């Protein structure tokens, strides 16, 4: 069973619809108990970083998420919250991935980074099974994770940034697989079946 972590600020309807399409057993919850019960966790994050972290603290999930050993997929803000820190609201995050989430340079770029962009994965990571390198995924972000040793895919927007990462049981994608047509559904299926 998949637990979809819902902290009440993000739109989880789209992730739920994909899981329905894949006929996967899932539970939407923010309770510690349900996160411990599920086999895997999907964390779709939408909204603002410092607000989301505050919510995780209030719900007593902050420390649990740092140490949990189950396969974990963070989407968009859900990935950014796995970093050490975010410039958005200048907040300390979960600290799974070393590095700080930064804002795109809006003096040189259109911000938010909005639309379909290439995701280049040079690795043979299971998350990208049956997805070609350079495939287009849908992004909607003003902040990004700089390139780092845990990246498994990168995307270019003015600079090159980490658009997917993996460390132990933690996976994170900056784009929205639930909104990226057929390749996006494939990625979620890969996480459920292979990761």
């Amino acid at each position, binding site marked *: 069973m998949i637990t979809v972590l819902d902290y009440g600020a993000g739109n989880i309807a789209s992730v739920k619809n994909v899981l329905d399409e894949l006929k996967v057993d899932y539970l939407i919850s923010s309770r510690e108990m349900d996160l411990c019960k599920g086999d895997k966790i999907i964390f779709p994050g939408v*909204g603002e970083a410092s607000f989301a972290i505050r919510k995780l603290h209030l719900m007593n999930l902050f420390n649990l998420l740092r140490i949990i050993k189950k396969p974990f997929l963070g989407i968009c803000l859900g990935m950014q919250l796995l970093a050490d820190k975010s410039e958005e609201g200048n907040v300390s995050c979960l600290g799974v991935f070393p590095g700080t989430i930064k804002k795109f340079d809006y003096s040189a770029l259109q*911000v*938010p980074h909005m639309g*379909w962009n290439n995701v280049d994965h040079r690795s043979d990571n299971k998350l990208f099974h049956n997805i070609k390198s350079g495939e287009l995924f*849908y992004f909607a972000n*003003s902040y990004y994770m700089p390139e780092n040793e845990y990246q498994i895919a990168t995307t270019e927007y003015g600079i090159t940034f980490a658009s997917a990462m993996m460390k132990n049981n933690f996976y994170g994608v900056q784009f*929205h697989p639930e*909104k990226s047509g057929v390749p996006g559904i494939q990625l979620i299926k890969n996480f459920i079946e292979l990761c």
Partner: protein
Amino acid sequence: MVTKRIIPCLDIKDRVVVKGVNFKSLEYAGDAIELSMKYYKDLADELVFLDITATEEKRKTLIELVKEIAKVIRIPFTVGGGISTLENIHELLFAGADKVSLNTIAVKNKSLISEAAKKFGSQAIVTAVDVNLINGKYEVFIKAGKEATGLDGVEWCKELQDLGAGELLITSMNKDGTKSGFDLEFLSKVEKSVSIPIIASGGAGKKEDFRDLFTDSGISAGLAASLFHYNILLIPELKKYLSENDIKVRL
């Protein structure tokens, strides 16, 4: 590099897609769910739904429709029409919409834009700007184009960005329904003044109009309605043409 987006716009009245001509009369254009599925298959990059009835009684019907749309397509979509409170926005986003489009209310209650951007993120807040060329000046109109505001088009777009809007959906009323091409002059003025993405609407009649819109420009997306609804231009054909003209699109 981010691809240029092609966005069909579906004007909704009682769950049915209609097409307005020059902001006036209405024609039937198809079923909302069927058209959504067709555009998803045709690789439309996003969809925009504007509820043109937009009364409080009908809001529940709209929410139900949004839930159904979110079930059948896997691309982002924006919903607009009659939104006036944070609660309205919350309902639409939690029903499965990715963004909301605010128009009249942006002029009447500016603080809603900044509050909504703070609460839901700028990426979820599209501001729609209807402009008309009156005596050589681009003026902002609200209430589905019926009411002049006296606001200057470019200045208003800048202000919307400062308030926290994540995208601008600019409709050139003077071009709408004419099929004579986008209003490149105004769009280029706005593009030079803001750094948020711009969706251009009004005037598209043929594939060359999209080529002209995107060539050497920072405009992110082109929106059209009847052109796509009536199969005058098929999205796959349009995208193939743009790609042949060195414009990067999702194929």
